[in-house]
């Protein structure tokens, strides 16, 4: 007993909830997941990002003990997925891509069934059903047949099913796929509200979703880990330093854009000025700062003092989309080149 207590308290202190080490899944012809390693801290929401077929679902299935890994190890809530699958399963809630619903069951019956299956006692079960119905806003469909529910409700019942046994870890495979915009927002808010109590991994191929809901991102492409970092760090990393779009117009007549460019380059803190476009008498530049320098004020002053009009000055925000393309772009472009080379060979 003492030993068990020690183990439990040690576990409560433990900060890392999921440890994945060199996880690999090979099928007969292809490698779905190729030596992926990452850690997830307790209470975080982690976005698992990648194009379709990148290996997101396979990785999640290995974490939920649905698929055994070919090589490597994964530990969820302190238990190895291969050695102690039952312990892992007790502590994880899983929402697959299509919610696993029995069409002929009513919502309440379904939650009772899943709750019992996850090992809840009759007393706990009643409270938990009450709790998840309220949390997932499915109280008004409690007596409806699951087969007759709309997509949004099905997804929410799926989520309720995943959290019914109050798991430490929640694994959600594309939780917002196929929902309308209002439902997407509701689902995102719901997921955000679940963080803290639960450690959440959610997969998606929609980038804004990660920006909005997650603290950490894991990007994979073709089974390989491309990047893992916090959302903020990734954005900073991708653009290096601040970059600003500046549109300058001449007061009267035409203006040589070269003159403007050389003037902008003189502003302190500017590392690079890129000429982007010229329309009539307006020129657009992208100005990059050195690391940790705030240059927008200086830029504005320089333009105005030179007697030009400052039409627009805005930060060029790098979306995750661009980061994603930057990070996965090379690999995506490679087959095309190969194909081109082959074509040329003929």
């Amino acid at each position, binding site marked *: 007993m003492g030993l068990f207590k020690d183990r439990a308290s040690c576990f409560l202190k433990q900060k890392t909830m999921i440890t994945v080490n060199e996880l690999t899944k090979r*099928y007969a012809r292809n490698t779905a997941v190729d030596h992926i390693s990452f850690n997830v801290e307790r209470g975080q929401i982690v976005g698992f990002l990648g194009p379709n077929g990148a290996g997101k679902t396979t990785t999640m*299935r290995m974490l*939920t*003990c*649905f*698929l*055994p890994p070919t090589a490597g190890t994964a530990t969820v809530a302190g238990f190895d997925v291969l050695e102690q699958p*039952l*312990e892992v*399963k*007790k502590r*994880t809630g*899983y929402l*697959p*891509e*299509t*919610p*696993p*619903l*029995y*069409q*002929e*069951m009513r919502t309440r*019956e379904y939650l009772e*069934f*899943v709750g*019992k*299956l*996850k*090992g809840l006692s009759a007393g706990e079960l009643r409270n938990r059903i009450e709790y998840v119905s309220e949390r997932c806003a499915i109280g008004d469909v409690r007596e409806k047949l699951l087969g007759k529910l709309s997509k949004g409700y099905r997804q929410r019942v799926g989520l309720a*099913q995943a959290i019914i046994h109050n798991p430490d870890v929640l694994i959600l495979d594309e939780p917002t796929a196929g929902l309308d915009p209002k439902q997407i927002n509701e689902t995102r808010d719901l997921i955000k509200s679940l963080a803290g109590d639960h450690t959440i991994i959610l997969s998606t191929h929609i980038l804004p979703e990660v920006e909005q809901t997650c603290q950490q991102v894991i990007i994979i492409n073709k089974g390989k880990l491309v990047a893992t970092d916090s959302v903020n760090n990734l954005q900073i990393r991708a653009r290096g330093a601040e970059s600003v779009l500046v549109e300058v117009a001449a007061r009267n007549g035409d203006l040589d854009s070269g003159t403007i460019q050389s003037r902008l380059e003189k502003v302190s803190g500017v590392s690079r000025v890129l000429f982007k476009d010229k329309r009539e008498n307006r020129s657009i530049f992208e100005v990059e700062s050195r690391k940790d320098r705030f240059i927008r004020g200086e830029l504005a002053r320089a333009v105005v003092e030179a007697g030009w009009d400052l039409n627009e000055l805005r930060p060029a925000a790098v979306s995750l989309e661009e980061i994603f393309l930057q990070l996965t772009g090379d690999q995506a472009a490679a087959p095309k080149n190969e194909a081109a080379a082959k074509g040329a060979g003929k």
Partner: protein
Amino acid sequence: MRNTFIIWRKEMRSYFVSPVAYLLLAMFGVIFGFFFWNILNFFVTRGMESQMSGEMYPMNVNEQMIRPLLSNVGVIGLFFIPMITMRLFAEEKRNGTIELLATSPVRDGEVIIGKWLAALTLYGGILLLTALNFVFLFKFGNPDWKPLAIGYLGLLLQAGALLAVGMFISTLTKNQIIAGAATFGVCLLLWVLEWVSGNDSSTWAQVLSYMSVVSHIGSFSKGVLDTKDAVYYVSLAFLGLFFTARSLESLRWRS
């Protein structure tokens, strides 16, 4: 144990909220009723003939009614078993609910036994319905109940074996129709294998005949509890359950 019961209850619910269970019960009831009426009619006619002709034929309710009836039930069962087993795993695979079962803290074995017992319970219910007819025999005749009980035990054993085989086939596909048709084919094959021994007494014919499910029901219908036949059914059931377990496990490696 608890998990097996949870799965069993869920399966029973799903049989009885859909029309499946009622349809099977009704169809079996009608078909068995027809057989019962037919054989009873024959029996009564013969009894009257024997009285009118003055010479007494030996008449025995057990031998002349219960035994052929139970043999018939064994064969009718072959047609019903695919309908009971086809959905067991095929439906879970199609709906994706297999992922829920596989990621819940239950063992594969508990799921398999739960489902198998549910199928067996439904079949037992169907057999119970046929027993309704026999009540009349006991009311108006004086048959021996022991051979009848052994006959039913044989039918249950036979069903246990075939249901396990059907369940295994159901794990192989997402399509219930395919699972049903394949199970029906296997059941039929296991029935007709017996026919070889009719005109051939070579060793291989003996072996094939031994493999037939129907050749083992004979002794039970007679009211004889033969260990050889019981062992056949029990081992076939084990084989089916074992294959189901292996097949479920292989799903995870392949998927």
